[in-house]
Protein backbone atom coordinates (compact mmCIF):
# COMPACT_ATOMS: atom_id res chain seq x y z
CA UNK A 1 0.00 0.00 0.00
CA UNK A 2 1.12 3.47 -0.68
CA UNK A 3 0.95 5.11 2.71
CA UNK A 4 0.90 8.56 1.14
CA UNK A 5 -2.72 8.01 0.16
CA UNK A 6 -3.93 6.26 3.30
CA UNK A 7 -5.51 9.37 4.80
CA UNK A 8 -7.43 10.54 1.75
CA UNK A 9 -11.14 11.08 2.31
CA UNK A 10 -13.65 8.91 0.51
CA UNK A 11 -15.27 11.89 -1.17
CA UNK A 12 -11.96 13.20 -2.43
CA UNK A 13 -10.78 9.80 -3.63
CA UNK A 14 -14.08 9.20 -5.39
CA UNK A 15 -14.03 12.58 -7.07
CA UNK A 16 -10.50 12.34 -8.41
CA UNK A 17 -10.83 8.72 -9.51
CA UNK A 18 -13.84 9.55 -11.59
CA UNK A 19 -12.21 12.65 -13.03
CA UNK A 20 -9.32 10.38 -14.02
CA UNK A 21 -11.69 7.88 -15.67
CA UNK A 22 -13.26 10.73 -17.62
CA UNK A 23 -9.78 11.87 -18.75
CA UNK A 24 -10.57 15.23 -17.25
CA UNK A 25 -7.83 17.84 -17.18
CA UNK A 26 -6.01 17.13 -13.87
CA UNK A 27 -5.16 20.76 -13.14
CA UNK A 28 -8.75 21.81 -13.69
CA UNK A 29 -10.05 18.97 -11.54
CA UNK A 30 -7.68 20.00 -8.74
CA UNK A 31 -8.77 23.62 -9.01
CA UNK A 32 -12.44 22.68 -8.96
CA UNK A 33 -11.98 20.47 -5.92
CA UNK A 34 -10.14 23.09 -3.93
CA UNK A 35 -12.80 25.67 -4.70
CA UNK A 36 -15.60 23.34 -3.66
CA UNK A 37 -13.96 21.74 -0.63
CA UNK A 38 -11.75 24.32 1.08
CA UNK A 39 -11.90 22.30 4.32
CA UNK A 40 -10.43 19.22 2.63
CA UNK A 41 -7.81 20.64 0.29
CA UNK A 42 -5.92 18.50 -2.20
CA UNK A 43 -2.44 18.84 -3.62
CA UNK A 44 -1.20 17.65 -6.99
CA UNK A 45 1.31 15.34 -5.29
CA UNK A 46 -1.36 13.79 -3.10
CA UNK A 47 -3.65 13.11 -6.03
CA UNK A 48 -0.87 11.75 -8.22
CA UNK A 49 0.13 9.33 -5.45
CA UNK A 50 -3.49 8.29 -4.96
CA UNK A 51 -4.06 7.70 -8.67
CA UNK A 52 -0.81 5.74 -8.96
CA UNK A 53 -1.93 3.58 -6.03
CA UNK A 54 -5.33 2.99 -7.63
CA UNK A 55 -3.81 2.12 -11.00
CA UNK A 56 -1.29 -0.26 -9.40
CA UNK A 57 -4.00 -2.01 -7.45
CA UNK A 58 -6.18 -2.30 -10.53
CA UNK A 59 -3.32 -3.75 -12.56
CA UNK A 60 -2.72 -6.21 -9.75
CA UNK A 61 -6.29 -7.43 -10.24
CA UNK A 62 -8.05 -5.60 -7.44
CA UNK A 63 -11.50 -4.30 -8.34
CA UNK A 64 -11.83 -0.54 -8.45
CA UNK A 65 -14.34 -0.35 -5.66
CA UNK A 66 -12.24 -2.63 -3.45
CA UNK A 67 -9.10 -0.60 -4.18
CA UNK A 68 -10.90 2.63 -3.35
CA UNK A 69 -12.29 1.19 -0.15
CA UNK A 70 -8.89 -0.17 0.91
CA UNK A 71 -7.09 3.11 0.25
CA UNK A 72 -9.66 5.15 2.13
CA UNK A 73 -9.61 2.78 5.09
CA UNK A 74 -5.84 2.29 5.01
CA UNK A 75 -5.91 -1.41 4.22
CA UNK A 76 -3.64 -3.40 1.96
CA UNK A 77 -6.52 -5.69 1.10
CA UNK A 78 -9.95 -6.41 2.49
CA UNK A 79 -9.59 -7.86 5.95
CA UNK A 80 -12.06 -10.60 5.27
CA UNK A 81 -11.61 -11.57 1.63
CA UNK A 82 -13.61 -14.79 1.79
CA UNK A 83 -16.99 -14.62 0.10
CA UNK A 84 -19.78 -14.85 2.63
CA UNK A 85 -23.30 -16.06 2.35
CA UNK A 86 -26.20 -13.73 2.73
CA UNK A 87 -29.34 -14.88 4.51
CA UNK A 88 -31.68 -14.98 1.56
CA UNK A 89 -29.27 -16.53 -0.91
CA UNK A 90 -29.56 -20.25 -0.23
CA UNK A 91 -26.31 -22.14 -0.46
CA UNK A 92 -25.40 -25.77 -0.19
CA UNK A 93 -24.79 -25.16 3.48
CA UNK A 94 -28.11 -23.48 4.02
CA UNK A 95 -30.08 -25.99 2.00
CA UNK A 96 -30.32 -28.77 4.60
CA UNK A 97 -31.62 -26.32 7.18
CA UNK A 98 -34.30 -25.16 4.78
CA UNK A 99 -35.12 -28.76 3.99
CA UNK A 100 -35.35 -29.58 7.67
CA UNK A 101 -37.59 -26.61 8.31
CA UNK A 102 -39.66 -27.54 5.30
CA UNK A 103 -40.05 -31.11 6.54
CA UNK A 104 -40.99 -29.90 9.97
CA UNK A 105 -43.58 -27.55 8.61
CA UNK A 106 -44.90 -30.28 6.36
CA UNK A 107 -45.10 -32.74 9.21
CA UNK A 108 -46.93 -30.36 11.44
CA UNK A 109 -49.82 -30.02 9.04
Amino acid sequence: MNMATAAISYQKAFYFWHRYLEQYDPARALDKWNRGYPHDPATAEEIEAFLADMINRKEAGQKESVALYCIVTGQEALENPEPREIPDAPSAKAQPLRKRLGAKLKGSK
Partner: protein
Amino acid sequence: MSLFFNHGYWSNSSKPGGQVFFVSGGTPAYRGKGGSDSSDGLTPERPLSTISGALAKCVSGRGDTVVVLPGTITLTAPVNITIADLTIQGYADTGPHVRKPSIITAAATYDDNLIQIDADDVTIKDLTFEAGFTNTTANQEVIQINSTDASSDIFGAVIENCFFEMNRAAGAASVTDNDLDVIRVGLDSNDRAFSSTVRGCTIRGCDQDAISISSGSTGALIENNQIYDGVGSELTRIGVSILAIGACVKNNFIMTGTSSDTAGPISVGAAAALARIHDNRLVARGEHTVGITVVNTATVFSSANWLTAVAAGNLVDFKTAATSPSSSCDVGQVYAADPATAAFTTATVAGS
Protein backbone atom coordinates in the same frame (compact mmCIF):
# COMPACT_ATOMS: atom_id res chain seq x y z
CA MET B 1 -54.56 21.61 -8.56
CA SER B 2 -54.36 22.73 -4.96
CA LEU B 3 -54.83 26.45 -5.75
CA PHE B 4 -58.31 27.94 -5.72
CA PHE B 5 -59.86 31.40 -5.80
CA ASN B 6 -62.37 32.30 -3.13
CA HIS B 7 -63.73 35.59 -1.82
CA GLY B 8 -61.19 37.57 -3.78
CA TYR B 9 -58.12 35.67 -2.62
CA TRP B 10 -56.07 32.79 -3.90
CA SER B 11 -55.50 29.96 -1.45
CA ASN B 12 -53.66 26.66 -1.39
CA SER B 13 -56.15 24.02 -0.28
CA SER B 14 -53.30 21.96 1.17
CA LYS B 15 -52.30 24.90 3.36
CA PRO B 16 -55.46 26.88 4.07
CA GLY B 17 -53.91 29.29 6.55
CA GLY B 18 -51.15 30.43 4.23
CA GLN B 19 -50.98 33.24 1.70
CA VAL B 20 -50.32 32.61 -2.00
CA PHE B 21 -47.94 34.87 -3.90
CA PHE B 22 -47.41 34.79 -7.66
CA VAL B 23 -44.11 35.38 -9.43
CA SER B 24 -43.97 36.17 -13.14
CA GLY B 25 -42.11 33.76 -15.37
CA GLY B 26 -42.01 36.40 -18.09
CA THR B 27 -45.35 35.78 -19.80
CA PRO B 28 -48.08 38.15 -18.54
CA ALA B 29 -51.37 36.60 -17.50
CA TYR B 30 -54.54 37.39 -19.48
CA ARG B 31 -55.41 40.97 -18.63
CA GLY B 32 -52.37 40.96 -16.41
CA LYS B 33 -49.19 42.99 -16.34
CA GLY B 34 -45.51 42.17 -16.17
CA GLY B 35 -43.87 41.20 -12.93
CA SER B 36 -42.69 43.79 -10.46
CA ASP B 37 -41.56 43.41 -6.89
CA SER B 38 -43.54 46.55 -6.09
CA SER B 39 -46.76 44.63 -6.91
CA ASP B 40 -48.57 42.80 -4.13
CA GLY B 41 -48.25 39.46 -5.96
CA LEU B 42 -51.64 38.28 -4.71
CA THR B 43 -53.07 37.42 -8.15
CA PRO B 44 -51.58 36.15 -11.43
CA GLU B 45 -52.50 39.53 -12.96
CA ARG B 46 -50.28 41.44 -10.52
CA PRO B 47 -47.26 39.16 -10.07
CA LEU B 48 -43.95 39.81 -8.42
CA SER B 49 -40.85 39.68 -10.61
CA THR B 50 -38.48 37.63 -8.42
CA ILE B 51 -38.71 34.66 -6.11
CA SER B 52 -36.67 36.54 -3.52
CA GLY B 53 -39.26 39.34 -3.73
CA ALA B 54 -41.96 36.79 -2.91
CA LEU B 55 -39.93 35.26 -0.08
CA ALA B 56 -39.65 38.72 1.48
CA LYS B 57 -43.45 38.76 1.81
CA CYS B 58 -43.79 35.23 3.21
CA VAL B 59 -44.14 34.43 6.89
CA SER B 60 -42.34 31.46 8.42
CA GLY B 61 -44.64 28.72 9.70
CA ARG B 62 -47.84 30.09 8.12
CA GLY B 63 -47.91 27.70 5.19
CA ASP B 64 -47.32 30.26 2.44
CA THR B 65 -47.05 29.31 -1.22
CA VAL B 66 -45.02 30.94 -4.00
CA VAL B 67 -46.35 30.13 -7.46
CA VAL B 68 -44.07 30.58 -10.49
CA LEU B 69 -46.15 31.51 -13.55
CA PRO B 70 -45.27 30.30 -17.07
CA GLY B 71 -41.90 31.27 -18.52
CA THR B 72 -38.31 31.29 -17.36
CA ILE B 73 -36.69 32.84 -14.31
CA THR B 74 -32.93 33.28 -14.74
CA LEU B 75 -31.11 33.38 -11.42
CA THR B 76 -27.84 35.16 -10.76
CA ALA B 77 -27.53 33.98 -7.15
CA PRO B 78 -28.98 31.06 -5.16
CA VAL B 79 -32.54 31.21 -3.87
CA ASN B 80 -31.99 30.75 -0.15
CA ILE B 81 -35.10 29.55 1.68
CA THR B 82 -35.15 30.25 5.43
CA ILE B 83 -38.96 30.29 5.79
CA ALA B 84 -40.44 27.18 7.39
CA ASP B 85 -43.50 25.45 5.93
CA LEU B 86 -43.08 27.16 2.55
CA THR B 87 -44.05 25.78 -0.86
CA ILE B 88 -42.49 26.98 -4.11
CA GLN B 89 -44.27 25.52 -7.08
CA GLY B 90 -44.92 25.94 -10.76
CA TYR B 91 -48.45 26.77 -11.83
CA ALA B 92 -49.00 23.55 -13.80
CA ASP B 93 -49.86 20.51 -11.72
CA THR B 94 -49.34 17.94 -14.48
CA GLY B 95 -48.05 15.13 -12.30
CA PRO B 96 -44.79 13.21 -12.11
CA HIS B 97 -42.17 13.04 -14.90
CA VAL B 98 -43.75 15.77 -17.01
CA ARG B 99 -41.64 18.74 -18.05
CA LYS B 100 -43.20 21.84 -16.55
CA PRO B 101 -43.59 25.27 -18.23
CA SER B 102 -42.36 27.14 -15.15
CA ILE B 103 -38.60 27.10 -15.60
CA ILE B 104 -35.75 28.13 -13.31
CA THR B 105 -32.32 28.45 -14.82
CA ALA B 106 -29.13 30.57 -14.89
CA ALA B 107 -26.42 31.56 -17.34
CA ALA B 108 -24.16 28.82 -18.68
CA THR B 109 -21.28 30.19 -16.63
CA TYR B 110 -23.24 30.04 -13.36
CA ASP B 111 -21.16 28.51 -10.55
CA ASP B 112 -23.27 28.04 -7.44
CA ASN B 113 -26.25 26.15 -6.03
CA LEU B 114 -29.58 27.16 -7.55
CA ILE B 115 -31.88 26.49 -4.58
CA GLN B 116 -30.81 26.22 -0.93
CA ILE B 117 -33.35 24.93 1.57
CA ASP B 118 -32.46 26.02 5.09
CA ALA B 119 -35.79 25.69 6.92
CA ASP B 120 -38.13 22.87 7.96
CA ASP B 121 -41.00 21.49 5.89
CA VAL B 122 -40.20 23.22 2.61
CA THR B 123 -41.72 21.82 -0.57
CA ILE B 124 -40.45 22.41 -4.13
CA LYS B 125 -42.81 21.06 -6.77
CA ASP B 126 -43.91 21.26 -10.40
CA LEU B 127 -40.89 23.18 -11.66
CA THR B 128 -38.40 22.61 -14.46
CA PHE B 129 -34.74 23.34 -13.80
CA GLU B 130 -32.33 23.91 -16.68
CA ALA B 131 -28.91 23.51 -15.11
CA GLY B 132 -26.21 22.62 -17.65
CA PHE B 133 -23.60 25.00 -16.30
CA THR B 134 -19.85 25.25 -16.89
CA ASN B 135 -18.98 25.16 -13.24
CA THR B 136 -15.56 26.10 -11.99
CA THR B 137 -16.28 24.72 -8.51
CA ALA B 138 -16.67 21.03 -7.79
CA ASN B 139 -19.98 19.53 -6.78
CA GLN B 140 -22.40 22.41 -6.78
CA GLU B 141 -26.05 21.38 -6.52
CA VAL B 142 -29.26 22.31 -8.26
CA ILE B 143 -31.07 21.87 -4.94
CA GLN B 144 -29.07 21.72 -1.71
CA ILE B 145 -31.17 20.69 1.27
CA ASN B 146 -29.41 22.32 4.22
CA SER B 147 -26.62 24.52 2.92
CA THR B 148 -25.36 26.27 6.04
CA ASP B 149 -22.20 25.07 7.70
CA ALA B 150 -23.64 25.91 11.14
CA SER B 151 -24.08 22.51 12.84
CA SER B 152 -27.84 22.73 12.51
CA ASP B 153 -30.32 20.26 11.07
CA ILE B 154 -33.53 20.67 9.09
CA PHE B 155 -36.50 18.38 8.61
CA GLY B 156 -39.11 17.42 6.09
CA ALA B 157 -38.01 18.84 2.73
CA VAL B 158 -40.03 17.58 -0.24
CA ILE B 159 -38.94 17.77 -3.89
CA GLU B 160 -41.87 16.61 -5.97
CA ASN B 161 -42.72 16.30 -9.67
CA CYS B 162 -39.83 18.48 -10.82
CA PHE B 163 -38.00 18.07 -14.14
CA PHE B 164 -34.24 18.55 -14.10
CA GLU B 165 -32.74 19.25 -17.51
CA MET B 166 -28.99 19.05 -17.00
CA ASN B 167 -28.01 19.86 -20.57
CA ARG B 168 -29.47 23.31 -21.02
CA ALA B 169 -28.73 26.66 -19.48
CA ALA B 170 -30.93 29.72 -19.81
CA GLY B 171 -32.72 28.00 -22.67
CA ALA B 172 -29.51 27.54 -24.66
CA ALA B 173 -27.87 24.41 -25.96
CA SER B 174 -25.93 22.14 -23.70
CA VAL B 175 -22.54 22.69 -22.23
CA THR B 176 -20.45 19.65 -21.42
CA ASP B 177 -18.36 20.72 -18.47
CA ASN B 178 -21.15 20.04 -16.04
CA ASP B 179 -20.08 19.35 -12.47
CA LEU B 180 -23.33 19.42 -10.55
CA ASP B 181 -25.13 16.92 -8.42
CA VAL B 182 -28.82 17.51 -8.84
CA ILE B 183 -30.25 17.08 -5.34
CA ARG B 184 -28.06 16.81 -2.29
CA VAL B 185 -29.79 15.86 0.94
CA GLY B 186 -27.80 17.34 3.83
CA LEU B 187 -24.51 19.16 3.68
CA ASP B 188 -22.46 16.87 5.91
CA SER B 189 -22.70 14.89 9.13
CA ASN B 190 -23.02 18.09 11.19
CA ASP B 191 -25.56 19.81 8.96
CA ARG B 192 -28.14 17.18 8.22
CA ALA B 193 -31.51 17.00 6.49
CA PHE B 194 -33.83 14.47 8.12
CA SER B 195 -36.83 12.81 6.53
CA SER B 196 -36.43 14.36 3.09
CA THR B 197 -38.50 13.15 0.15
CA VAL B 198 -37.71 13.18 -3.57
CA ARG B 199 -40.73 11.96 -5.50
CA GLY B 200 -41.92 11.93 -9.09
CA CYS B 201 -38.93 13.80 -10.49
CA THR B 202 -37.12 13.32 -13.79
CA ILE B 203 -33.37 13.91 -13.87
CA ARG B 204 -31.98 13.99 -17.36
CA GLY B 205 -28.30 14.07 -18.36
CA CYS B 206 -26.62 14.49 -14.98
CA ASP B 207 -22.91 13.74 -15.08
CA GLN B 208 -22.33 13.44 -11.32
CA ASP B 209 -24.63 11.99 -8.67
CA ALA B 210 -28.28 12.61 -9.42
CA ILE B 211 -29.43 12.31 -5.80
CA SER B 212 -26.83 12.31 -3.05
CA ILE B 213 -27.82 11.60 0.56
CA SER B 214 -25.07 12.90 2.84
CA SER B 215 -23.85 11.19 5.96
CA GLY B 216 -26.23 11.60 8.89
CA SER B 217 -29.27 12.66 6.85
CA THR B 218 -31.45 9.77 7.92
CA GLY B 219 -34.85 8.66 6.71
CA ALA B 220 -34.73 9.86 3.10
CA LEU B 221 -37.45 8.58 0.79
CA ILE B 222 -36.57 8.42 -2.90
CA GLU B 223 -39.49 7.12 -4.91
CA ASN B 224 -40.97 7.06 -8.38
CA ASN B 225 -38.20 9.07 -10.04
CA GLN B 226 -36.70 8.70 -13.51
CA ILE B 227 -32.96 9.22 -13.68
CA TYR B 228 -31.24 8.71 -17.00
CA ASP B 229 -28.14 9.79 -18.85
CA GLY B 230 -26.98 9.31 -22.41
CA VAL B 231 -28.03 12.85 -23.23
CA GLY B 232 -25.22 14.21 -25.35
CA SER B 233 -21.98 12.98 -23.85
CA GLU B 234 -23.21 13.01 -20.27
CA LEU B 235 -22.83 9.79 -18.31
CA THR B 236 -24.33 9.75 -14.86
CA ARG B 237 -21.88 8.56 -12.23
CA ILE B 238 -24.37 7.42 -9.58
CA GLY B 239 -28.14 7.59 -9.68
CA VAL B 240 -28.74 7.54 -5.94
CA SER B 241 -25.80 7.74 -3.53
CA ILE B 242 -26.71 6.78 0.03
CA LEU B 243 -24.37 7.70 2.85
CA ALA B 244 -26.94 7.78 5.65
CA ILE B 245 -29.09 5.44 7.70
CA GLY B 246 -32.65 4.47 6.90
CA ALA B 247 -33.01 5.51 3.28
CA CYS B 248 -35.79 3.99 1.22
CA VAL B 249 -35.29 3.85 -2.56
CA LYS B 250 -38.26 2.37 -4.37
CA ASN B 251 -40.04 2.32 -7.70
CA ASN B 252 -37.40 4.34 -9.54
CA PHE B 253 -36.07 3.96 -13.06
CA ILE B 254 -32.34 4.64 -13.03
CA MET B 255 -30.01 4.36 -16.02
CA THR B 256 -26.32 5.20 -15.68
CA GLY B 257 -23.44 4.82 -18.08
CA THR B 258 -20.15 5.50 -16.34
CA SER B 259 -17.83 2.50 -16.71
CA SER B 260 -16.57 1.75 -13.23
CA ASP B 261 -17.58 -0.60 -10.48
CA THR B 262 -17.47 2.39 -8.15
CA ALA B 263 -20.35 3.88 -10.14
CA GLY B 264 -23.80 2.63 -10.99
CA PRO B 265 -27.50 3.21 -10.46
CA ILE B 266 -27.47 2.89 -6.65
CA SER B 267 -24.52 3.10 -4.29
CA VAL B 268 -24.73 2.44 -0.58
CA GLY B 269 -21.69 4.15 0.84
CA ALA B 270 -19.57 4.40 3.91
CA ALA B 271 -21.98 5.12 6.73
CA ALA B 272 -25.12 3.55 5.37
CA ALA B 273 -27.30 1.05 7.17
CA LEU B 274 -30.87 -0.22 7.03
CA ALA B 275 -31.26 0.88 3.43
CA ARG B 276 -34.42 -0.42 1.81
CA ILE B 277 -34.00 -0.77 -1.93
CA HIS B 278 -36.86 -2.37 -3.75
CA ASP B 279 -38.90 -2.47 -6.94
CA ASN B 280 -36.46 -0.36 -8.94
CA ARG B 281 -35.70 -0.76 -12.62
CA LEU B 282 -31.95 -0.33 -13.01
CA VAL B 283 -29.86 -0.08 -16.15
CA ALA B 284 -26.09 -0.24 -15.74
CA ARG B 285 -24.78 0.62 -19.20
CA GLY B 286 -21.12 1.02 -18.35
CA GLU B 287 -18.64 -1.78 -18.43
CA HIS B 288 -18.18 -3.50 -15.07
CA THR B 289 -20.84 -1.29 -13.58
CA VAL B 290 -22.96 -2.72 -10.82
CA GLY B 291 -26.65 -2.26 -10.22
CA ILE B 292 -26.46 -1.77 -6.49
CA THR B 293 -23.04 -1.32 -4.92
CA VAL B 294 -22.56 -1.69 -1.19
CA VAL B 295 -19.13 -0.50 -0.23
CA ASN B 296 -18.92 -0.73 3.52
CA THR B 297 -20.55 -2.13 6.62
CA ALA B 298 -24.19 -2.00 5.72
CA THR B 299 -27.53 -3.57 6.32
CA VAL B 300 -29.39 -3.53 3.06
CA PHE B 301 -32.80 -4.98 2.35
CA SER B 302 -33.15 -5.35 -1.37
CA SER B 303 -35.98 -6.96 -3.25
CA ALA B 304 -37.56 -7.12 -6.68
CA ASN B 305 -35.08 -4.84 -8.41
CA TRP B 306 -34.70 -5.48 -12.12
CA LEU B 307 -31.40 -4.86 -13.83
CA THR B 308 -30.27 -4.61 -17.41
CA ALA B 309 -26.51 -4.87 -17.45
CA VAL B 310 -25.43 -3.98 -20.97
CA ALA B 311 -21.86 -4.95 -20.19
CA ALA B 312 -20.66 -7.05 -17.34
CA GLY B 313 -22.55 -6.28 -14.21
CA ASN B 314 -24.11 -7.67 -11.10
CA LEU B 315 -27.39 -6.79 -9.56
CA VAL B 316 -25.95 -6.43 -6.09
CA ASP B 317 -22.30 -6.49 -5.22
CA PHE B 318 -21.31 -6.34 -1.60
CA LYS B 319 -17.75 -5.27 -1.00
CA THR B 320 -17.77 -5.01 2.70
CA ALA B 321 -15.32 -6.47 5.15
CA ALA B 322 -18.01 -6.51 7.80
CA THR B 323 -17.81 -9.54 10.03
CA SER B 324 -21.53 -9.96 10.43
CA PRO B 325 -23.45 -8.25 7.68
CA SER B 326 -27.17 -8.85 7.78
CA SER B 327 -28.14 -7.99 4.28
CA SER B 328 -30.92 -9.69 2.48
CA CYS B 329 -31.31 -9.78 -1.23
CA ASP B 330 -34.11 -10.95 -3.45
CA VAL B 331 -32.41 -10.46 -6.73
CA GLY B 332 -35.36 -9.83 -9.01
CA GLN B 333 -34.27 -10.29 -12.62
CA VAL B 334 -31.19 -9.62 -14.71
CA TYR B 335 -30.93 -9.24 -18.46
CA ALA B 336 -28.02 -9.40 -20.83
CA ALA B 337 -25.30 -9.53 -18.24
CA ASP B 338 -21.92 -10.72 -19.46
CA PRO B 339 -22.20 -14.53 -19.35
CA ALA B 340 -18.56 -14.68 -18.30
CA THR B 341 -19.44 -12.81 -15.16
CA ALA B 342 -21.64 -14.44 -12.63
CA ALA B 343 -24.45 -11.95 -12.57
CA PHE B 344 -27.06 -11.85 -9.91
CA THR B 345 -25.86 -14.94 -8.13
CA THR B 346 -22.79 -13.15 -6.78
CA ALA B 347 -24.55 -11.22 -4.12
CA THR B 348 -21.72 -12.00 -1.82
CA VAL B 349 -19.68 -10.19 0.74
CA ALA B 350 -16.08 -9.17 0.86
CA GLY B 351 -15.11 -8.30 -2.64
CA SER B 352 -16.80 -10.81 -4.84
